[in-house]
């Protein structure tokens, strides 16, 4: 009977699938990561090769991972948590999921504005969110600050990613701490008025829209542009470092965020976890991380990749990144009020 043999085949497949449970070896670390596999596995592999410490990991969005850590409580198998935005790390500390780590190596390798003051999380790479523009329709002299994109001259020429993305929430949060809430709200409302088209679901779409002529300027994380420029040298989209000149908020520098990592409260291998943290902040890992995703190293002693060095040095907003986490919910409310979807 055909049906029966079909069923047998599936059962067989299932059993084969189940049977491949690897035997646990020690030592081993468990990581919950919202940084995706392609961007962490090569680095972990390198660590395993050097130290013999195996790393097992699960990837998911930050929300579910935090919920899981929280539900598992003291019994969680996780030793470390990696997230791609400081807002998520700040939440993790609010939920008391991360343990403080006191390390002289980390204090030296990671600038104070890119780590928690109690040592509960540390940046492992830096991403800059800045202005990109169409080479043939915009002169760089026309550009200055995030705030200036609310100017009428950009009416119908601006493209943005959705406000649901945490990158934009963090950007607006730091604008709030620089300009105050009322002024930021009118700036964001100005952005919305200038939109050429409803917000996109990804930074890549913003860059593609500029390349295709749907709009002229946009806000993206620099590594997205680096990737697209590498794939297509004739892209026609260029990068501009925002808020470099002027006094006060005007010249506060480009908004930077981190991909960061912390040791969980539940971990019973905190020393080993600390070893991984310190290794991640060292020159070798920093180079690997920067190469994988065209991000900037956190360690000031490490150099960015040649491709992004071409964009030139920039001044970064040195407001502690934790501000972005603290103000995230307020930023979302503000964007909702301003009609930024």
């Amino acid at each position: 009977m055909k049906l029966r043999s079909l069923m047998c085949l599936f059962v067989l497949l299932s059993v084969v699938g189940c049977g491949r449970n690897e035997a646990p070896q020690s030592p081993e670390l468990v990581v919950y990561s919202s940084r995706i596999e392609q961007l962490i596995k090569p680095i972990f592999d390198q660590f395993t090769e050097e130290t013999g410490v195996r790393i097992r990991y699960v990837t998911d969005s930050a929300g579910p991972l935090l919920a899981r850590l929280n539900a598992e409580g003291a019994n969680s198998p996780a030793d470390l948590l990696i997230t791609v935005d400081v807002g998520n790390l700040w939440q993790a500390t609010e939920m008391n999921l991360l343990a403080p780590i006191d390390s002289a190596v980390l204090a030296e390798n990671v600038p104070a504005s890119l780590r928690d003051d109690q040592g509960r999380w540390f940046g492992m790479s830096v991403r800059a969110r800045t202005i990109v523009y169409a080479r043939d329709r915009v002169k760089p002299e026309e550009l200055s600050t995030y705030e200036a994109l609310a100017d009428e001259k950009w009416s119908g020429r601006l493209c943005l990613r959705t406000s649901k993305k945490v990158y934009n929430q963090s950007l607006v949060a730091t604008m709030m701490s620089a300009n105050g809430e009322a002024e930021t709200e009118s700036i964001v409302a100005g952005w919305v008025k200038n939109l050429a088209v409803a917000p996109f679901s990804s930074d890549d779409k913003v860059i593609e829209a500029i390349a295709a002529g749907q709009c002229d300027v946009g806000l993206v994380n620099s590594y997205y542009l680096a990737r697209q420029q590498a794939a297509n040298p004739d892209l026609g989209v260029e990068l501009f470092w925002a808020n470099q000149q002027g006094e006060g908020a005007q010249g506060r520098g480009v908004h930077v965020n981190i991909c960061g990592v912390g040791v969980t409260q539940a971990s019973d291998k905190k020393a080993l976890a600390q070893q991984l943290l310190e290794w991640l902040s060292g020159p070798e890992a920093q180079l690997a991380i920067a190469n994988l995703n065209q991000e900037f190293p956190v360690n000031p002693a490490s150099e960015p990749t040649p491709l992004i060095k071409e964009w030139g040095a920039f001044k970064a907003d040195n407001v502690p990144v934790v501000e972005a986490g603290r103000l995230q919910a307020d930023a979302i409310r503000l964007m909702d009020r301003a009609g930024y979807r």
Partner: protein
Amino acid sequence: MSSPVALPVVGRAYGRIVLRVLGLVLVAAVLAPVLVVLLSWWSPEGDIWQHLLATQLPGLLRNTVVLLIGVGVLVSLLGVSLAWCTVMCEFPGRKQFDWLLMLPLAVPAYVMAFVVLGVFDFGGPLQALGRSVFGPRWGVDVRGDLSVIVIFALVLYPYVYMLARSAFLSQSSETLEVARVLGCNARQAFFRVALPMARPAIVAGVSLALMETLADFGTVAVFNYDTFTTAIYKSWFGFFNLQAATQLASLLLLFVALTLFAERRSRGARRYTQGARPQHHRRYVLSPTGRWLIFAYCGAVLSLAFFLPMLQLLLWVLASGGEQFNARFADLIGHSVSLAAMAALLTVVLALVLAFNRRFSSARRRDVFSLAQLGYALPGSVLAVGIMVSFTWLDNRLFLPLQQWLGIDPRPVLLGSVLTLLAAYWIRFLAVASGPLDSTLERIRPSLPEAARTLGADGWRVLREIYLPLLRPGLLTAFVLVFVDVMKEMPATLLLRPFGWDTLSVRIFELTAEGQWQLAALPALSLVLVGFLPVLLSIRASVRR
């Protein structure tokens, strides 16, 4: 109310009790995570509610209603008309369309969404072509109500198609012939006999499609189209307020529960049994124009819903090179297939237990067993968290103390095990398997098993020799639907998978999370191809019948 079908599958009293108890355990298992969701109301989150009401809720509700109506109408039209054509009319390629039209089921809605955007959007190849003709400022934004509705309809109509098709197939041609003899023309026979008789199947299909639409997050996110589910995710991922998110989700649940309940009630005492052995239909013979029109219609739907996205995915795969093909990729496929197969088998068996329970119950008790279908009405992530919370509760309160007491090194046993992931799948997809099973079961005349009993067959024999053979089309459909749904499932797989158990959908998530849609084409294409294998096999099995 329904005429008493007092006959149990298993004759002796204990058999009936075992069936009941099993059914109630299943309902409880589904309700546990749902209750976790409902418990969120202990701490009201007035703050976020007020904010949502003041800013977004009106727009979200408008979008959600438009989407539900649009998708509901379109999947009914497509599903029923295609099923009627392939079952009742003779036209070129009928045999092939009969099964080909099921294939879009294997295309995940989020994949369809990013393909459609890639092809038709301003930056896509079509509009670029348009600009080379009409000038550089030419172009339109394709994201809107219509495109989202069409995408959902194209990938979800197979639910209706498959269920309506098996309903039409099992309608005896005598019934239709009687209608014709009594003076109905073909159209009247369809609207007055065939369609009403197929109602339970069609409703089951449409409600599956609508529940999936309601709970969807990935597809609408690609289009930045805000629905009620968007608000749920915003409360959770943005405000980090899981409480408010689950409160919103429980409203969604209530809405679905009430709608399903109302539909069941409106059927009243009508019954939908059929003659025992459906004969082969004499199909309508159409004029040549009619034949080719139907061919063109089926062909158009199939091209849009299946061949076009496949072609685009293939082009992307070719463009991105073959470096993803390695041993790990084979692992992804292996994990996807084995999880889907195990989950589908398990879900179909459990859904059968529930279906029999419903069949042998009074109307009110039947509603109790229908509660087990609510798992499908929650957004995947919310249900996954509910399941995770209830299983960690068991781990922390039951298994860890037990291990300590036994002197074993305590470690969580449930969370992160294949068992838990499978539980998540069947809790979510019981509703999917129930649709085809219930509607097939409803068509079996009670007199058949009764006769078997009278002739002295025991309960198992009735099950084996009467019910299972007659249920076969329903069982196959249920298996295929769940298999494909598990392949496509993302949130529960992400949250509950054991270490290293990455699947194709996990890989798609990881690539699309960073916007690398073109690289996601390979896992997406593989997912579709592997997903339709059981569709093909089941069709061969059902054709042979």
